[in-house]
């Protein structure tokens, strides 16, 4: 065997590396494409959720000293009541398929979550080194935040961190949330990897799958806010599942259906 290496020096290696690039500058995606609009719409959909968060209400300064004392007393009672409620009250999450691992005010990570098989603290603990580049801390606590969607947040610290963050402690998954996870898996298995499902066929499949998993009170609705036509032909897909509103949102007018 005659081995004649022609190991490239740096100057030769760089063009080789660039040629191996699977996405060249000419192949960059169109930021105004249907897929891009879909992604932008999904991100901005957070708007409604954020706007619905409880806001801080500025207190007006009372003019009478007696009123100040009365307010202080009411505030004291309210704080004590809130503390009792928050510390002792486990709350179910409104959104059960994902959670946030919160490392600090400046660093959190959103990860998917299976409420049937996992618990939030362990899910974050396993992901922690990959997410934040440090070993998982000793003490983590799962809470449910005060937003209308009731997101699961895993904070550093013991049970008191839920209260400190205006949240309640996580009360585990409800039977409906377990059935919803089954529904997601079932629906995903029914959708083809690639191809085209018309809106009506997809709606029928979703309805049948909801019924199969005994998910009552759920609605199916077209997504009107993406800037692309809905229910006007093309291929359809599930845009997202709004668990707090019990709503399956479908999008149509796509060039091709790809599995979500």
């Amino acid at each position, binding site marked *: *065997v*005659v*081995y*004649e*290496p*022609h*190991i*490239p020096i*740096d100057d030769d*290696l*760089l063009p*080789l*590396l*660039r*040629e*191996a*690039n*699977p*996405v060249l500058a000419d*192949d*960059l*995606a*169109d*930021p*105004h494409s249907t*897929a*891009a609009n*879909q*992604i*932008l719409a*999904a*991100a*901005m959909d*957070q*708007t409604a959720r*954020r706007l619905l968060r409880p806001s801080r209400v500025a207190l007006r300064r009372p003019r009478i000293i007696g009123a100040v004392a009365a307010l202080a007393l009411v505030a004291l009672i309210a704080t004590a009541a809130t503390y009792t409620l928050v510390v002792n009250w486990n709350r179910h999450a409104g959104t059960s398929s994902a959670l946030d691992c919160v490392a600090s005010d*400046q660093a959190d*990570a*959103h*990860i*998917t979550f299976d409420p049937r098989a996992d618990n939030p603290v362990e899910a974050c603990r*396993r*992901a922690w080194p*990959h*997410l934040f*580049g440090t070993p998982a801390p000793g003490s983590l606590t799962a809470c449910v935040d005060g937003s209308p969607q009731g997101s699961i947040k895993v904070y550093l610290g013991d049970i008191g961190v839920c209260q400190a963050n205006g949240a309640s402690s996580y009360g585990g998954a409800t039977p409906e949330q377990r059935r919803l996870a089954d529904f997601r898996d079932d629906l995903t298995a029914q959708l083809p990897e690639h191809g085209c499902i018309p809106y009506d066929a997809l709606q029928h499949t979703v309805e049948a799958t909801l019924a199969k998993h005994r998910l009552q009170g759920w609605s199916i609705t077209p997504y009107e806010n993406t800037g692309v036509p809905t229910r006007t032909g093309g291929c359809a897909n599930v845009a997202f599942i709004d668990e707090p509103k019990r709503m399956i949102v479908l999008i149509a007018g796509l060039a091709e259906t*790809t*599995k*979500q």
Partner: protein
Amino acid sequence: MNDEDRFEALFRATYPRVLAYGRRRLTATVAQDVAAETYVVAWRRRQQLPEGDAVLPWLLAIARRVTANHTRSDRRWRRLRHRLSAEPPLPVVASNGDMPGVRAALTRLSSDDQEILRLAYWDDLSYDEIAAVLSISANSIGVRLHRARQRLRTHLADGQLTQTMEAARGV
């Protein structure tokens, strides 16, 4: 300009490169998911959005974490599927026969080496931008890149030797 308009402008300006980041590391479908998740997180943290050129590395740092999370989940899923079906696990990255071993050699490097080379030569980021994505000092980027290139060269040479030997054996 309100938050929504600002965010849309940012999205239109950066989406091609954020999506490309995913496509260079994942399948096309998963890359779309990673881009989507990246902008969900970005929107949530819009109050912390940096100004000007710092936006792209900030987004890519998010995309990197989302990718790491996805890859970890995917590995778990593959292991589970393998246990359930006893079918052989799929290769994570297939090498391209048209590229004489460069991609294959890349996959034999550590994930840190792969990432810094891809950020530099595929994503076309500057040293400062790479440092921001990786959350490390900009001063160390040059040394890390140099070492990663050295190791890549070693693997390329190994690959050539293997190919030469296989050719000699008629494999």
